[in-house]
């Protein structure tokens, strides 16, 4: 099997995913275009050597439909030879795209690919995209569907995480993200997004709330109470009769912020790197996805981590640094408990609770954050993963090249 190396990664800043967000005026394809331009320019890439541009997009509807990966590549002036495809593994789409790029390289069928993702949540909002999962009565009723927020509150209820636990975690995420931003840890990866005159619209993650305290968060009302009362709490309890009552602990301050963003990761063989003058920064050791029970939905990270570790003949003690998307605080708390890892080893620069989770793009971003931090701390191995709608987990192990 050929080894797959990561040569570089870039991302947009994360803009507030509402109509007053700084990236709201930028079309999704333009957002990705600028990220792809930057990846090309800073590596002086001969884009005719790129076999595939693979982009995760969760809400492939409207402006984000019809393969924005290929569209953005062409729009960015990439060579015609750079094919493009769009994929969807919900919240892990961006990481899945990198894994797919790696798989193409490892199988010997591609030399150089870009994986990453895109989501403009301000322009293609979550609640305007349906799909059978939540909407088709046979599927939703038969599958005991509940929205993510209810799943997160179900995890808290079932495993006994309190409002204080999740709020304390969120405060720490804000603190770490502020610190990392202030110290410039993200600077090398962020591509400032500009308007057509070249003026910068946004060059930093827009949603970090420096100085958030547990007292601030204690004031916020839980976000998913009404949704639960519509009937989703009953559905959750029908699936988990051992849970007597859903304790609604998640709110705007301890859930991932809704944001706009795009990411791109350059993956290829050692040989193509040598030929094009690219220095490998990391090697993709392995990756795995797995399914878990769909109603509780967000418990996939630990099983997918165990799966990839086993497949690679490793144990969690071989991993120096962990990164798990902070879709909701409880997801990371449960993962730390199940994997028996300390907060000091995971999400050391904060996460989506502070900076936001642009669904399809996030996987590429958290992978990039992990690699940057492994370099900064001079650590060798990292494991990154995300929880996923529909009850899944996707994990990737990387090591410094």
């Amino acid at each position: 099997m050929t080894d797959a190396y990561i040569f570089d990664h870039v991302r947009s800043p994360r803009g507030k995913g509402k109509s007053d967000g700084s990236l709201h005026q930028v079309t999704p394809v333009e957002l990705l275009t600028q990220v792809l331009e930057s990846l090309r320019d800073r590596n002086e890439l001969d884009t005719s050597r790129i076999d595939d541009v693979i982009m995760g997009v969760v809400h492939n509807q409207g402006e984000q439909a019809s393969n924005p990966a290929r569209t953005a590549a062409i729009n960015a002036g990439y060579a015609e030879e750079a094919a493009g495809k769009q994929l969807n593994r919900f919240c892990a789409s961006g990481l899945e795209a990198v894994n797919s790029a790696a798989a193409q390289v490892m199988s010997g069928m591609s030399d150089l690919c870009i994986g990453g993702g895109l989501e403009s949540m301000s322009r293609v909002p979550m609640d305007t995209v349906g799909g059978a999962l939540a909407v088709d009565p046979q599927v939703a009723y038969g599958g005991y569907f509940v929205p993510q927020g209810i799943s997160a509150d179900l995890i808290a209820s079932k495993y006994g995480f309190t409002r204080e636990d999740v709020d304390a975690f969120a405060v720490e995420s804000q603190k770490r993200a502020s610190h990392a931003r202030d110290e410039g840890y993200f600077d090398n990866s962020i591509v400032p997004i500009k308007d057509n005159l070249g003026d910068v619209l946004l060059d930093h993650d827009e949603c970090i709330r420096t100085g958030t305290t547990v007292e601030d968060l204690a004031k916020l009302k839980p976000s998913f109470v009404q949704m639960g009362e519509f009937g989703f709490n009953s559905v959750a309890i029908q699936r988990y009769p051992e849970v007597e009552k859903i304790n609604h602990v998640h709110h705007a301050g301890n859930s991932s912020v809704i944001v706009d963003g795009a990411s791109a990761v350059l993956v290829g063989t050692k040989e193509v790197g040598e030929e094009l003058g690219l220095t490998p920064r990391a090697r993709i050791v392995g990756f795995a996805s797995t399914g878990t029970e769909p109603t509780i939905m967000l418990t996939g990270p630990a099983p997918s981590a165990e799966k990839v570790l086993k497949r690679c003949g490793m144990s969690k003690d071989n991993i120096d640094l962990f990164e798990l998307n902070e879709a909701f605080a409880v997801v990371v708390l449960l993962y730390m408990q199940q994997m028996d890892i300390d907060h000091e080893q995971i999400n050391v620069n904060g996460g989506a609770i502070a900076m936001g989770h642009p669904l399809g793009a996030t996987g590429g971003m958290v992978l990039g954050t992990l690699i940057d931090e492994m370099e900064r701390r001079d650590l060798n191995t990292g494991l990154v993963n995300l929880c996923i709608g529909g009850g899944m987990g996707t994990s990737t192990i990387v090591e410094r090249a």
Partner: protein
Amino acid sequence: MSKTMNMNVDQDGIAVIEINVQDRPMNVITADFADDFKNCVEEITKDEKIIGAVLTSAKNDFMAGADLKSMLPTLIGLGDASAMAERIIESHKLNRAMETCGKPFVAAINGTALGGGLEITLSCHYRIAADRNDAVLGLPEVMVGLLPGGGGTQRLPRIIGIQAALELMTQGKHLKPQKALAMGIVNELAPPDELLPKAKQWILDGGKAIQPWDKKGFKVPGGFDPNTKGTIQMFSVVNAMVAKNTNHNYPAPIAIVSSVYEGCQVPIDTGLKIEAKYFVGLLCDPVSGNMIRSLFNNKQSADKLRARPKGVDKHTVKTLGMLGAGMMGAGITLVSAQAGYESLFA
């Protein structure tokens, strides 16, 4: 003159069909009824002197719907489901013939119209109900584990919109004529003695013999598009509400929701096929047969005290004494007290 209806044509060329199923206190849909009704529709279509038809009842009420009593034995050990679905799909052709024959049909709903009775009126081009306080309209099939299988899940949402139709059908609610008018299920109300003249007048005034869903560019009232926020939110919440209310124990409510969801995205003829399949699915499920037996047949018979030995007077409980008020006894005492009985326990 047949066993289930009379048809007379007046001097204006308006056929008046009076449903009158013999030997039944209420009009119900029997095999004979279906045959007779088919003959009437064919005659109305063919006879050039006939310009339109009024459908009403010769009894105090319009029609109660399917004949549950004769249905039960056929449900137990139901044979070939596919053949059954084919028969139901075939039977929809009659209503479609009536809707598309080019002559206006008006339902003059003189009293209560439930289930299949109301469904027939939904196939008429216009509905006038007698403004009677003792009459009710509704599609209560869900109460016996079934769905409105006479086109109700397809026509009602296309008349009053998805949300209102779902509410009515999943809860099996009965409505007074005033409410049915407000919801748009009937087009007009009339005092009982003006019902027939008004119905005829609608035809004479040039009432159109076309259903909304047969018009080009038809859209479900209130909108229905699984790619828009409104529909997405409505269905995801409805699905959860059904789960909450049924605990996943009753198959009918979600079958109704699915029949509406899937059927309203396609032309009505396809929608009727979808409905027929969900309907047969419920017929084959033992839940519906058991509900008909327990909640309809046996309950009616219990309400009428059929099992009571002759000559024993009806006894009214005033005070309830419970010996041994453990978990169950305490519960019985509580519900009895809540129901207004003086209740004591030791």
